[in-house]
């Protein structure tokens, strides 16, 4: 496929891609620019692609209407815990299933894979009951524990296992001869070499936790415990109508940091995802 294209085809491909880009890029642009437009202009006709004047007061309003800093922190630390926990436990399990021979390994792997068929949406009712009986409703425990051990982590385990299977086994044999036990081999040889897969797992897991919506609205009830996705929907006036500009300001603050990190590290992002063993 990678042959040099004729100039005319090139123009065609560029043109097609530019048109296709609109729905991918424009919403983000619209979100940020609308959030700095005065309220009178956000529904202006014809629409202003580039804002005529700037009004940053909405950004202050975000913090007045909701404990937004606290909510930001909630989302960030929950996502961090989930990501670290998933990376650790999934790489351990993935490694064992790829490399260590133990009785029942295949059966147990099937049991773990079963987790892929059971997204937390299916088990949300009993999970609610369980956490209720443990006194963990309106705490962040469910949002940390369920993803670390539920379906998303099963996916991570699968990705890690695929990666470890492809890793040359001689490296680990050399390490055994060099005097390392299983845990040290895992920690000093296998894990450092698994960086691309770990990066992919980290990205998936972080985004999954960062985007979680059903679980927070089921488990959390007080605004200072809310996470960002849940908080974003709370910017309404007394009649329940959306305060669009405030909401868009909050949305921009939620979206932009991750987007900026992505653009800086896009190569690692994309290549990490591409090399997850998902090639089939």
């Amino acid at each position, binding site marked *: 496929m990678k042959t040099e294209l004729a100039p005319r085809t090139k123009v065609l491909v560029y043109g097609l891609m530019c048109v*296709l880009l609109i729905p991918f890029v424009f919403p983000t642009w619209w979100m940020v620019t609308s959030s700095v437009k005065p309220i009178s202009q956000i529904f202006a006709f014809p629409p202003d692609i580039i804002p005529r004047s700037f009004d940053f007061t909405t950004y202050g309003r975000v913090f007045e209407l909701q404990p937004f800093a606290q909510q930001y922190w909630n989302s960030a630390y929950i996502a961090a815990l989930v990501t670290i926990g998933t990376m650790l436990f999934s790489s351990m399990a993935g490694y064992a299933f790829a490399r260590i021979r133990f009785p029942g390994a295949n059966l147990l792997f099937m049991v773990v894979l079963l987790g892929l068929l*059971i997204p937390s949406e299916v088990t949300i009712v009993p999970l609610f009951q369980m956490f209720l009986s443990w006194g963990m409703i309106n705490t962040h425990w469910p949002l940390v524990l369920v993803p670390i051990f539920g379906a998303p982590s099963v996916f991570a385990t699968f990705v890690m296992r695929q990666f470890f299977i492809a890793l040359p086994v001689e490296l680990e044999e050399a390490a055994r001869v060099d005097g390392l036990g299983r845990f040290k081999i895992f920690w000093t040889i296998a894990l450092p070499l698994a960086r691309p897969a770990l990066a992919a797992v980290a990205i998936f897991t972080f985004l999954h936790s960062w985007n979680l919506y059903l679980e927070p609205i089921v488990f959390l009830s007080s605004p200072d415990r809310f996470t960002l996705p849940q908080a974003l929907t709370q910017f309404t006036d007394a009649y329940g109508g959306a305060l669009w500009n405030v909401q868009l300001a909050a949305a921009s603050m939620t979206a932009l940091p991750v987007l900026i990190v992505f653009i800086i590290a896009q190569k690692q992002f994309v290549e990490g995802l591409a090399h997850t063993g998902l090639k089939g």
Partner: protein
Amino acid sequence: MTSSATSMAVREKRKRPFWTMERRDAAAGYLFIAPQLAGITLFVLIPLGLVFWYSLHEWNVLASTFRFIGTENYERLLTDRDLPRVLGATAIFSAGLVVLNMSLALLLAVLLNQKLAGITIFRTLFFSPVVVSLVAWTIVWSFLLQNNGGINGMLAAIGVEGPNWLRNPTTAMISVIVVQVFKNVGLNMILFLAALQGVPRELYEAARVDGASPFKQFRRITLPLISPTVLLTSIITIVGSLQVFAQIAVLTQGGPGISTTVLVYYLYQQAFQFHLFGYGSTLSILLFVIVAVLTFAQWQMRRKIVFYEN
């Protein structure tokens, strides 16, 4: 004879310790999987058992009734007048999403696989919605799709009167599908791109020498070789489409009417808005069965569709 005699002697001489290398290694294996296995048991398997148990009960949280009713909830599934429409909406949503997502992902991957300057920038931009917060993305689309919002504003500027997107059953369904496709198609695009780049160049060169047209090359070489990826991503996409909740909740709340109420949203309403945990659990079982059947069917199809696997 002599060799077996020696081996007997050897066996007698040497007493094997209990912690042989295999046993030590196996113990390490169990330790490595222990956290994940314990977690899955506690947070996935036991809840699944409980869901089934709950589904056999009438359980109204507000009235605090908890009563064993056998299969009554399942009979209710058959008589629930909303359920056929909910399942219909789910089917349309999932099918529309998967078809649109896979074909757009493939088109983008093929475009991005061309040797062009600045292709990385395009790749980054097409991928960018994946990393934009889901609810933020949905909110801005909701804003754009308002009757007086950006999309209709722009349509009006070129003299077209747009519909009230989220208030009309058909356009509302189209809207939730399209919003979700643009959000996540980047993932499949990247996986397809990786698969395309994994096709050995020589195969295309050989096909060109054999006189195959670009279209034929795509159909006879590219597609078969990337079919494992297509299958895997389609499973992930279809299972994922059955879990879509936030987008519906933010964009349409399942409306207008119940036209965009997909199964997960319906289950959430029954369990957490109407506080019917028993019937909600029955709907969970239904969701689980659908996910399981679809996944199983796709793995079975693998034999027919996937031409090639390493």
